[in-house]
């Protein structure tokens, strides 16, 4: 079996593990197997690339983290007090690592399957627990190091080697702080709630992380414009509660020679707390952690009193949009699937949020230079910036292929066993379900913001843009290979991304162009709207009028 440098480094600390009562050779073996398995696991992003040469994937992601780290590093060059700068940098680093821990490594921490394999062998539980922690630590520390590397280098250059030394030590403390606090957080959640709740919470963290990342990328260029105000840091009692403050304090003490009680106390917290957490974790939490982990698959079967009433209400609501029985069933089915499948939510929600924010970001970017807020407002109102809604259109229409994907895509065998007369009713129901529950509310919300800015006069435009959105959605659907809802794995989206991107681009440029020309020349958009509505209706009928019944073999589990 391949040996790893990481493990060779770990060998140097063998005595530590022996002291903890860990069977080091066994732990090393477990880690080795885990690392080999990780190398072979192809992340979904790279799954369609053919070169599955070992270990490139994780290294690629390290490179990306390093690039993000360069942005963080820029703060060290600003003319503020070191304490303040380190606060910002460490704060961002902690946020990043915490998010990565929660989104990517929760599954490792919460794995119950490996226990079934390992505990049935003559291995002590402690060894397994430590191996698990070290496994995560190896990854988290590599990531921490790549995010911090730019700051580490530039900082050492600017403030001397002492800076580098403190920073490096801090990174070790920070990674362990993140791991132990996350595990304890999970422990507490599992202690009080059941596994489904924890999975939901993790899911919302992941969604939030994706949204924050998207916004950060948009704002990176503007960061320095925003922070051109002088910051005066005042000592407040609650600053003792902020992790980045603890870890930033030693820099002030040692490099800027500020031996003040305030900084000293903070520095001590920063050292003691991670160590304390380590002790608490292994002495108190770990023995019980595995026990509560068993709850992970439990689900307190809620007693729902009025499920029948609720279902009837849903059905009545669906009746407003669907006149066919099968269509109606799939309308509700689609909504339930999306709202209960975490992986779909993870893909859909960020793009919905982004669809809301993106026109606003573009407006901000294009008028941001014009000085005061009232000036900005005037520029916006006098322009036709509501046409940026076409960005929302292209983002929202992207959710169409998502309808065909699911983690449970293998369960789609059921569709072909069911007596469905016409496949088109399935598609219609699903599409309508998506539009009514997600697309329409999000679009209305963005539109509302624009109506507040521009007044009622843009309502016709907003309706026209919505008609165009629907048209784009069925165009994307029509030119896809029309798999059944939830019958494909997420790879499907990756394979179709480019085509859909060009379809949206072409469509939006064309429709927005016509729209812009009409407004520019003072024509009413109402006629445009009527024409587009007719095209939409004809297209809808044409696409769905054929009775289609053919299940391709590849749609069905072979």
């Amino acid at each position, binding site marked *: 079996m391949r040996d790893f440098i990481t493990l060779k480094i770990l060998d140097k600390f063998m005595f530590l593990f022996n002291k903890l009562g860990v069977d080091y050779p066994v732990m090393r073996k477990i880690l080795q197997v885990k690392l080999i398995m990780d190398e072979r696991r192809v992340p979904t992003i790279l799954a369609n690339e053919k070169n599955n040469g070992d270990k490139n994937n994780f290294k690629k992601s390290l490179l990306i983290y390093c690039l993000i780290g360069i942005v963080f590093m820029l703060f060290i060059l600003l003319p503020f007090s070191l304490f303040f700068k380190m606060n910002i940098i460490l704060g961002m680093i902690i946020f990043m690592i915490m998010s990565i821990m929660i989104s990517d490594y929760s599954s490792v921490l919460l794995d119950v399957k490996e226990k079934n394999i390992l505990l049935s062998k003559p291995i002590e539980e402690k060894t397994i627990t430590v191996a698990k922690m070290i496994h995560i630590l190896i990854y988290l520390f590599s990531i921490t190091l790549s995010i911090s590397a730019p700051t580490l280098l530039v900082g050492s250059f600017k403030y001397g080697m002492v800076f580098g030394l403190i920073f490096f030590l801090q990174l070790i403390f920070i990674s362990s702080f993140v791991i132990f606090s996350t595990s304890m957080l999970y422990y507490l959640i599992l202690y009080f709630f059941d596994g489904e709740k924890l999975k939901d919470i993790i899911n919302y963290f992941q969604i939030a992380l994706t949204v924050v990342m998207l916004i950060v990328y948009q704002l990176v260029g503007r960061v320095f414009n925003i922070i051109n105000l002088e910051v005066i840091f005042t000592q407040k009692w609650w600053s003792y509660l902020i992790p980045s403050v603890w870890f930033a304090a030693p820099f002030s003490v040692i490099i800027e020679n500020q031996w003040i009680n305030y900084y000293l106390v903070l520095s001590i917290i920063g050292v003691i707390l991670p160590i304390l957490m380590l002790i608490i974790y292994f002495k108190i939490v770990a023995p019980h952690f595995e026990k509560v982990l068993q709850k992970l698959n439990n689900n307190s079967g809620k007693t729902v009193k009025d499920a029948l009433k609720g*279902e009837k209400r849903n059905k009545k609501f669906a009746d407003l949009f669907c006149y066919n029985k099968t269509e109606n*069933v799939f309308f509700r089915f689609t909504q339930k699937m999306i709202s209960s499948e975490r992986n779909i939510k993870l893909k859909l929600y960020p793009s919905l949020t982004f669809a809301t924010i993106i026109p606003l970001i573009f407006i901000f970017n294009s008028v941001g230079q014009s000085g005061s807020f009232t000036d900005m407002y005037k520029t916006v109102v006098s322009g036709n910036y509501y046409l940026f809604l076409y960005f929302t259109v292209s983002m929202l229409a992207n959710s169409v292929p998502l309808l065909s994907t699911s983690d449970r895509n293998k369960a789609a065998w059921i569709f072909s066993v*069911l007596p469905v007369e016409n496949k088109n009713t399935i598609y219609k129901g699903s599409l309508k379900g998506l539009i009514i529950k997600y697309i329409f509310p999000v679009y209305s919300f963005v539109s509302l913001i624009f109506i507040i800015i521009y007044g009622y006069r843009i309502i016709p435009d907003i309706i026209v843009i919505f008609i165009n959105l629907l048209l784009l959605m069925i165009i994307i659907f029509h030119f896809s290979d029309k798999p059944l809802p939830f019958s494909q794995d997420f790879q499907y989206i990756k394979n179709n991304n480019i085509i859909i991107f060009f379809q949206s681009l072409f469509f939006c440029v064309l429709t927005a162009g016509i729209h812009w020309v009409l407004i520019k020349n003072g024509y009413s958009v109402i006629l445009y709207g009527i024409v587009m509505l007719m095209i939409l209706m004809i297209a809808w009928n044409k696409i769905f009028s054929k009775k289609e019944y053919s299940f391709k073999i590849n749609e069905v589990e072979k």
Partner: protein
Amino acid sequence: MDKEIIVSIKNLRMRYDEKEVLKGINLEIYKGQIIGYIGANGAGKSTTVKILLGLINDYEGEVKIGGEDITKNKVAYKRRIGYVPETAEIFDNLTAYEYLNFIGELYGLDINEIEKKATKLMTLFNLEKVLHGRISSFSKGMKQKILIIASLIHNPDILFFDEPLSGLDANSVMIFKEILSELANQGKTIFYSSHIMEIVEKISSRIVLLNNGEIVADGTFEELKEKSKEGSLEEIFNQLTGFNKYKEIACEFVSTLQGV
């Protein structure tokens, strides 16, 4: 036999790429029979079932269900069929109630009726507490029970069960066996595929043994026993599939463990 023929298969052939999986199957199944459909791994059992269900279309030969060719009207006959697949794939992010509702409505049942049936059937299978729990949190046996309920909720005439007992506890197995014979009494036809010979031997009114894409035995257990002069279905199975070295292999296996 003067009974009504419900499934008839004539000269059914099927090939995947080069490999011929079914080499001309002829079978007539009568109403109310429980067919034990057995065969070694890869013998073509699942393929047959999938053709009958309309999951595979590019076969040769003729398949009639209820007297009508299944390629003629691909949908209507599915109302009369219930199916439990071998792999328990299910949209398990839904709750049991939601899943059963979805299936039931597509079979054309009314919501009130589904509610009543689902609650009652779940209670009978001892699952009343998890009716509104997500299926993902269920054990294997519980999932299997949901699949069984889902396949029967529309009261079908023809049932296809592929290893339906996997994961069920002994009590549930007994209930399920009773359900099968009760269903057969009511004139339902059951296609039962399994590798557990003891159960097939006990419940089947007719046993069909498939080997290498051909039917090598067809008849009641008693008939097969007489023909092959073996005591149990397991032994008949071994004989007909031409496998008789199990003792030697087992001995060698154990002696390897002890270190030769």
